[in-house]
């Protein structure tokens, strides 16, 4: 690919510097010893690169546990959301009924709610259900984030599938559920993958619900573990940076591996608007 003018590389470099340098610093710091981190003049590369920070995070901290919790919660709420969203989206896309648009509007609105406005009542509610400090509790409240999203996106995908494809099956007497499972789902698989990724990332990064509802280290998720790392492990910046690297890896891997799906999904959505 040839550039129109060599000048284009200047803004490109600036852009890269802005976006990448902090990560460079995060990675460099994660390999420095404590003495080197607290040393002036600052070194640009670790003088004696050490794996001690990673060792500390992986073997002497709760981070692996938080990692596991985050995985369970993100997967759990994403899957549950898809299970509930699929029939709902089908209902919205294929049935005409009273108040349909009202319900759809309500679902859209529910996603616009500022999360902070929900923490107090949800806290009390989870307390009554005895679900505070449980992974199930977190999975359930994360449905607030993932379910409306999944319903909306899936409704869109289902609508884009021509009704004619179903008509033959209806004439053959297949039930709606069979049609949904046998015809609609396979056809919207790419859409489901995108929804899966979006809600996985959204829940993996979620902060305020986890902060409010998961206090015990057995259920804490990675973002909270990282935010509290400094009090738990004595403001050890090397370890915090190592934990940051570890936390970013799966997201970076998903993103770089599935970049086409991700960005493609976003871009095609954007241009349809």
């Amino acid at each position, binding site marked *: 690919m040839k550039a129109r003018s060599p000048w284009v590389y200047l803004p490109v470099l600036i852009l890269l510097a802005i976006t990448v340098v902090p990560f460079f610093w995060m990675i460099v710091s994660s390999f420095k010893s404590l003495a080197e981190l607290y040393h002036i003049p600052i070194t640009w590369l670790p003088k004696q690169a050490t794996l001690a920070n990673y060792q500390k995070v992986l073997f002497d901290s709760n981070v692996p546990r938080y990692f596991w919790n985050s995985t369970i919660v993100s997967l759990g709420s994403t899957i549950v959301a898809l299970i509930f969203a699929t029939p709902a989206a089908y209902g919205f896309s294929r049935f005409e009924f009273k108040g349909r648009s009202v319900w759809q509007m309500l679902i859209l609105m529910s996603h*616009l709610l500022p999360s902070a*406005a929900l923490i107090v009542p949800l806290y009390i509610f989870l307390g009554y259900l005895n679900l505070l400090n449980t992974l199930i509790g977190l999975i359930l409240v994360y449905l607030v984030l993932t379910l409306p999203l999944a319903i909306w*996106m899936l409704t869109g995908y289902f609508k884009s599938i021509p009704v004619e494809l179903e008509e033959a099956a209806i004439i053959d007497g297949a039930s709606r559920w069979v049609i949904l499972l046998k015809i609609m789902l396979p056809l919207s698989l790419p859409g489901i993958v995108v929804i899966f990724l979006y809600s996985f990332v959204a829940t993996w990064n979620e902060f305020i619900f986890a902060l409010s509802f998961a206090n015990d280290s057995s259920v804490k998720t990675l*973002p909270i573990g990282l935010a509290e790392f400094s009090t738990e492990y004595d403001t050890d910046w090397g370890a915090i*940076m190592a934990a940051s690297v570890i936390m970013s890896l799966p997201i*970076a891997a998903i993103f770089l591996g599935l970049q086409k799906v991700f960005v493609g999904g976003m*871009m095609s959505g954007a241009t349809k608007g």
Partner: protein
Amino acid sequence: MSDAATAMVQTEASSKARRAQPEAAAPRGRLARYLAAHKDGPTFFILPAIALLATFIIYPIISTLIMSVTNGNGVFVGAQNYIDIIESDRTARATMNTVYFVGASIILQLILGTAAGIVLNEQFRGQAIVRALTLIPWVIPGIVGAMTWAWMFHTDYGVINYVLSSWGLIDEPVRWLTNPTIVLPALTAVNVWKMFPFVAIMVLAGLQSIPVSLYEAAKVDGATFRDEVIYITLPQLRPILASITLLLIIAGVNSITIIYAMTKGGPADRSLITSIQIFVEAFQYFNFNQASALSVLFFLVSTLFIVAHIWLDGRRKER
């Protein structure tokens, strides 16, 4: 969170366009209709999801409303909680900070993001990898970005102060996160850094949908790159920028991670925003009822902004 909202608003827009599609024929006959409605009809498809959402959204909203007009013992106190919370100095400060943080963030994100999108749309070596790398701040968890910047901003051992002072630009270390006049701009910068890649990629998508013929025609007329940007690119981008703005507003009112992780709203409330204030009122001072009143106000005001934006956007489209 933004990613989630993004996708949803997009599909909403796209589904609107297709609403005119024919619906499946409804079954005839009273009995058949009844059976269909209850066995194979929309109810069973939709009800489970609606019930779940109602449990975790409608119930909390109602209970917030109730708590906002009662005291700790459940006794009705009218508007007292609202009066108390509105009169509190913290609320005024948090509101100002939220408006500043969200407003300044959105403006800068739009400017930087559009510029980055235009750059990424140019042809150059390594375009694909640069596009992917640009997105990284947006993709990685907010908490990671916050912690990394907090370490870079460290007054005594942060790399930013070190570089600035070794270049002779500053004599005294800058207190990025504790100087009352600098803390909010610094946090805004981090937030912009986090979100502008998202704007960039959306703009990039918008740019690619602009018909090439427009540029070709301009070239025939001898237009420069600058002319192209001003007379073709930006006007063509306007609709997509409007929907991006909506998403940024939603992301803005939901933002808490960066500020909570970096300053917790300090020093002396100088970076307190409303979402943190709700958390603090509820879980640090245990004023659940005032926190509820604040939640209701916050919800109303942010909904107002969102509705106003949608309405204005809709009016412009009609024109």
